[in-house]
């Protein structure tokens, strides 16, 4: 599943498909940082659709009452798959919802990289020094389709997509600003694009060669240790796969789970 990564090294809780369920987690994590006296805050990202979920309201309310240093960053890109914002809420966007819960909130042009940088930097400082939540509504537009399985021209005009792509493209805006300061040019652009492409292709090559994990891994990390019922199920599965290998993917190794 794309985008469902996580990284302990980068302080990045693993992403899940459930919408807005991470926002109450963000509050709990922020509370922990506060209690530990850390010079750190939590940032939780979600979309315009996510602001309709119960967990969003739960999280904002808890963050305000429990005074947790968390930044709620809403990427309001106008679309939740095929649902436009006008079918999502009738409030004045998401910023007023933060306000309603007693959370200081700000609306920012999400396509202006400098404005976003400035807002988030200030929000971080405020969240940490005051130990209170902040909501940032970044107003932007989803130029792409929802996923590769989606064709968004089925529910919105192509002209609309093209307009945002041309007139309000954040990459173009930022690039023009860099070039106007003499910090960027066509050569640098070409070099960056070429290097990025090479890096990406290499990463794909490396990933494609990585062996699939053994089927025994399916049974680990359900709990901290493998319980007996899963040992039994794994043994039975091994027997079945060994007997009927043609019915199972051949590139997944079948190795025993080490006994705990």
């Amino acid at each position, binding site marked *: 599943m794309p985008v469902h990564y996580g990284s*302990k090294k980068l302080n990045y809780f*693993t992403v899940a498909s459930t919408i807005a369920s991470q926002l*109450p987690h963000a509050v*709990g*994590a922020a509370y922990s940082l506060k209690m530990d006296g850390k010079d750190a805050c939590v940032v939780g990202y979600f979309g315009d659709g996510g602001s309709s979920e119960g967990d969003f309201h739960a999280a904002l309310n808890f963050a305000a009452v*429990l005074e947790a240093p968390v930044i709620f960053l809403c990427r309001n890109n106008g679309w939740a798959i095929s649902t436009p914002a006008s079918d999502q809420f009738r409030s004045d966007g998401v910023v007023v919802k933060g306000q309603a819960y007693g959370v200081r909130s700000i609306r920012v042009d999400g396509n202006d990289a400098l404005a976003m940088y400035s807002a988030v930097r200030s929000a971080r400082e405020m969240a940490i020094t005051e130990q209170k939540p902040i909501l940032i509504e970044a107003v932007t537009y989803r130029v792409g389709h929802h996923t590769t399985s989606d064709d968004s021209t089925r529910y919105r005009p192509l002209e609309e997509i093209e307009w945002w792509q041309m007139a309000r493209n954040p990459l173009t805006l930022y690039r023009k600003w860099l070039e106007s300061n003499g910090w960027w040019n066509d050569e640098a652009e070409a070099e960056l694009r070429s290097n990025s492409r090479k890096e990406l292709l290499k990463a794909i090559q490396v990933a494609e060669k990585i062996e699939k994990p053994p089927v025994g891994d399916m049974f680990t*990390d359900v709990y901290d240790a493998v319980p007996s019922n899963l*040992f039994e199920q794994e043994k039975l599965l091994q027997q079945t796969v060994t007997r009927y290998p043609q019915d199972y993917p051949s590139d997944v190794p079948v190795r025993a789970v080490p006994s*705990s």
Partner: protein
Amino acid sequence: MASVLGRYGRKWSLGCVSYHKNHLPRFSTVTHSAVPSEPIQQQQAGRSMNLYSAINQALHIALESDSRSYVFGEDVGFGGVFRCTTGLAERFGKHRVFNTPLCEQGIVGFAIGLAAMDNRAVAEIQFADYIFPAFDQIVNEAAKFRYRSGGQFNCGGLTIRAPYGAVGHGGHYHSQSPEAFFCHVPGIKVVIPRSPSQAKGLLLSSIRDQNPVVFFEPKWLYRLSVEEVPEHDYMLPLSEAEVIREGSDITLVGWGAQLSIMEQACIDAEKEGISCELIDLKTLIPWDKETVEASVSKTGRLLVSHEAPITGGFGAEISASIVERCFLRLEAPVSRVCGLDTPFPLVFEPFYMPNKNKVSRKYWFPKICVTTWCSSASWQLVFG
């Protein structure tokens, strides 16, 4: 005897070897957390207390022994609606023991985030009947937190406590036993104590276990159940069932408040010459199949009893598993004596409840008589 057993297949002979009560299987049903399997040291000084006091004591110990532990939920600050959190806020401060807004999904979601940062988060849901708004957080988040991150993250420090079960006048929304919903969720544990001393040890184990635990407390026993509870810090192992009454004619399995009902039925049965073995399951998932199997291989009969409605109740899982493992040993169908398939009623509660009459009279007494006769005839046929 072994050769006869061998004829009935590998599963039968493996499954019905007699166990010493303390034998642990090769692969552990107990997790790798720091939970010693020591029994409660009876020599240590105990004090007579009820269930809510024992739970309160466990929480005091948990907070004192671990500075990274927190207790929160609706109304826990002043001591809680059942007094389980009395004195905690005064002693540990309102940053560690605090009220939350009235929002179960928020309580559990917040608790998951706190636990994921290596804290012990003890979240209270005021009544198990109100746990359902948090069901998504429990099933989709807590249960999968470790698995979906490939072990990079976990919320093992999470414990959700909720009073459950009949209380005499609770009606639809203060009496439910929702344990079966949670037993269907790989990744969490479900623990239900039967008494004050059990509750204290099991709650401390649950809090310290490295996996998210849903801990249901039988509210009817909060005041009613009183016993000597050792005052020191002790833990009872999870995923280990306990034979609390030995017998030879029938195995009865239950948990929580229902065990005292079943014990009454066992005492009554004794007068009729029927010897009952009573097992407290304690942990419903992962559950200790080996202990139940060993008992049924001795008695040949099984009866499971719970307050929750019979259809889809956890008794069905126990029944199916034991039939799989002990089919050729069973001398009667597995019986379930449970709540009826209705919402928990108010005025009809005495009729709904699986009381001792239902356990002892209607459901197995005739079966024991009939099947004893049948089985003695069939043993004659098989062994000549």
